[in-house]
């Protein structure tokens, strides 16, 4: 540990994998650590440099970790890209480290999932930092490993893996009967590198099959007016639970359903004491206490609510925003870059959409900021131009032009700095963001109830392509989610319909061609999806919130 000579050591394990075809050819880039990795004499700093660079909050290190992170993400990565003509596609980039450098790999993946799709982190025992604000499509996945005989390194690794899984990150773990041992790390590296760099994914020769979605669990027996579903571990038992946002225009109680990790949700209870007209339930740690809270977007005249978790799945109800807003959805992201999740409120009607800033401990600014005037039923936050700031995709719901509003810093948005996408008369219910064609730019998928499902590809200069139609408007699309369901590193599209089966559009890696796979029944209308491995079988399951039909989970199987 501690200098770049380790890179050559790992190359001796990796080159045989390339030779055998276990992984494609890869370039390895390593920055040496500590004083041995620096040309100038830095002894005057008086701190252990390797730890200061790799561990957030290391004692007496000041802002060294943050500056080193900037060096890594904003200087080393662009340098390597340019100097060695490396791929700019995040799906072709992986972070790796062991011990303290595993902590850094983990933290870099948390902060820069837009740059890296995977982190292989072995025996990193340092406490996980709270950087969970990236949109789903920019979340890295984590492969953790450690030795069971290495005490705190093992416990810390396990703790970080658990915390990320609780927040619905994609996490793999393997623990060996070993110590803090390079032999163990070599074993883990060789075993899991093919997961990070799948064999020949671009040609489709080893394309993993799409799971079957024919095992169905009704979450309730009655058909009500549900609008959305969220997922997270609410009661701290290590299993994923669900929250159902119910009501829409008619007051109903939102429901918590506790999962047992085996695909059953036998225990359930009302989220709060008051029935309301809920459209959305976002799962996020609002008060930085380590457990998952819930933001509920309610239509007028109901207050907009947050529910703060006590860590055991019991919630304390608070309010934010204004009851009179015609809210159709809320989304959550750190818009002003202070590390706290803020709330975006999509209002359909003359009322502007709002940004409610988190002041800490679950308190929100009394006067939320008007951010965009388009009537919207969901605002999608994502860094669209790669400047590290979260921008807003605001689709027009009622026959107008949709826009991406660029974040000018400190959560400032202006009509003067917005980019149009889609037609001038759109009726888009919602959109989602991902790099569909793997060109390093963010693309938009939108469902318009009059024209169907379309993709708008990010282009050089920041504009978006004309619509690339993926499906028509019959059946009418009402719900949208993006996820890689067949583990081929390409983003697939999941669409729910009115009185028709839902459809998975499987991306062939180009982003422009999709194979359709219908699933589920034709009952009711699907308003929202949540995708996560609910039965711990390693496959992504799909929870669907429906109106006029019971809410349901479709379990993935082979």
């Amino acid at each position, binding site marked *: 540990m501690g200098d770049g000579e380790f890179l050559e050591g790992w190359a001796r394990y990796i080159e045989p994998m390339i030779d055998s075809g276990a992984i494609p050819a890869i370039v*390895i880039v390593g920055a040496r650590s500590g004083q041995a990795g620096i040309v100038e004499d830095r002894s005057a700093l008086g701190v252990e440099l390797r730890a200061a660079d790799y561990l957030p909050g290391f004692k007496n290190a000041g802002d060294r970790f943050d500056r080193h992170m900037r060096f890594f993400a904003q200087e080393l990565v662009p340098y390597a890209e340019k100097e060695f003509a490396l791929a700019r596609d995040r799906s072709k980039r992986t972070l790796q480290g062991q011990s303290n450098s595993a902590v850094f790999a983990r933290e870099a993946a948390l902060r820069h999932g837009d740059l890296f799709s995977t982190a292989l982190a072995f025996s990193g025992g340092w406490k996980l930092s709270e950087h969970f604000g990236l949109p789903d499509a920019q979340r890295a996945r984590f492969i953790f490993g450690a030795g069971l005989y*290495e005490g705190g390194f093992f416990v810390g690794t396990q703790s970080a893996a658990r915390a990320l899984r609780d927040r619905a990150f994609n996490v793999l773990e393997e623990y060996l009967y070993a110590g803090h041992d390079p032999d163990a790390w070599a074993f883990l590296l*060789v075993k899991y590198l093919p997961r990070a760099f799948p064999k020949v994914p671009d040609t489709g020769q080893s394309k993993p099959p799409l799971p079957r979605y024919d095992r169905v669990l009704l979450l309730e027996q009655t058909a009500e007016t549900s609008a959305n579903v969220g997922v997270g571990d609410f009661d701290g038992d290590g299993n994923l639970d669900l929250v159902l946002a119910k009501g829409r225009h008619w007051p109903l109680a939102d429901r918590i359903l506790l999962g047992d990790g085996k695909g059953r949700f036998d225990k359930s209870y009302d989220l709060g004491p008051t029935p309301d007209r809920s459209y959305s339930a976002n799962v996020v740690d609002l008060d930085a206490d380590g457990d998952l809270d819930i933001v509920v977007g309610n239509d007028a005249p109901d207050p907009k609510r947050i529910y703060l978790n006590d860590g055991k799945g019991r919630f304390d109800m608070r309010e934010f925003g204004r009851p009179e807003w015609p809210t159709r959805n809320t989304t959550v992201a750190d818009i002003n870059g202070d590390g706290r999740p803020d709330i975006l409120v999509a209002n359909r009607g003359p009322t502007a959409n709002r940004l409610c800033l988190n002041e800490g401990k679950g308190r929100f600014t009394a006067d939320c900021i008007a951010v965009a005037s388009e009537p919207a039923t969901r605002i999608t936050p994502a860094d669209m131009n790669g400047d590290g700031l979260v921008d807003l995709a605001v689709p027009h719901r009622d026959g107008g032009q949709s826009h991406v509003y660029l974040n000018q810093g400190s959560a400032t948005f202006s009509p003067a700095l917005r980019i149009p996408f889609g037609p001038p008369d759109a009726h888009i219910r919602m959109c989602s963001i991902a790099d569909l064609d793997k060109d390093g730019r963010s693309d938009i998928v939108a469902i318009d109830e009059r024209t169907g499902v379309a993709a708008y590809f990010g282009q050089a200069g920041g504009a978006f392509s004309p619509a690339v139609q993926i499906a028509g408007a019959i059946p009418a699309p009402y719900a949208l989610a993006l996820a890689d369901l067949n583990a081929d590193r390409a983003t697939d599209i999941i669409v729910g319909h009115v009185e028709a089966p839902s459809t998975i559009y499987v991306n062939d890696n180009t982003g422009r061609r999709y194979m359709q796979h219908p699933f589920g029944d034709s009952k009711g209308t699907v308003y929202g999806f949540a995708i996560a491995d609910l039965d711990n079988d390693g496959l992504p399951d799909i929870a669907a919130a429906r109106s006029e039909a019971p809410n349901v989970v479709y379990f993935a199987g082979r």
Partner: protein
Amino acid sequence: MSRRVLALLLATLAAACATPREAPLPMANNSDRCADLEKRAETEERARERLAAALLACRLDSVIDAAEATRILGASPAALDVRGDNVVFLARASASEVKMTGTLTAPMERIAKTDLWAARFRFQFIDYAMLKFLPFADGKQLAGSKAINWRGPKAPEQPALKRDLKGTMVKRTLWSEALQETRKIDIYLPPSYSRRRPSRTLHGRW
């Protein structure tokens, strides 16, 4: 270690053996008190996890005599002896302090009136274990010793290792505005590398 701390550790250890999950904590309405309790619960849960982890490789009294240690060591400066789930780590060193590193980092005990040092551990699931042992005497690697590796019959196999790389190792330096210093960079380029074809990247941190 004070008697009180020891008692707490033993009680926690017993709890960890019996029930790995925390017991319900008393509730309080005062939010600060709740926060304190939550912090304490988290700390105690972590302590239990650490103790449970420590049980996986648990230190025992060395209990080995000089003659037996000498026989096991032979002419070597260091050795390990596996008997069932017990492993004795041995070193021969004229030093005031000897420490074992590798799988475990721990002080070794001198066998009375000799230059022999020992440490005994019990390992759970030793058939699956990968053990490494390298002794340090007075802060330096024990003269003449090299790392001793031992693998149980069911341990993972050592991956294939290539001594002579066909790929290219490149060394560069890069000025960092963020750090205001020049960093040393190592790059491995695979045999098929070409600037004209974008390559996948493993950003390793060493």
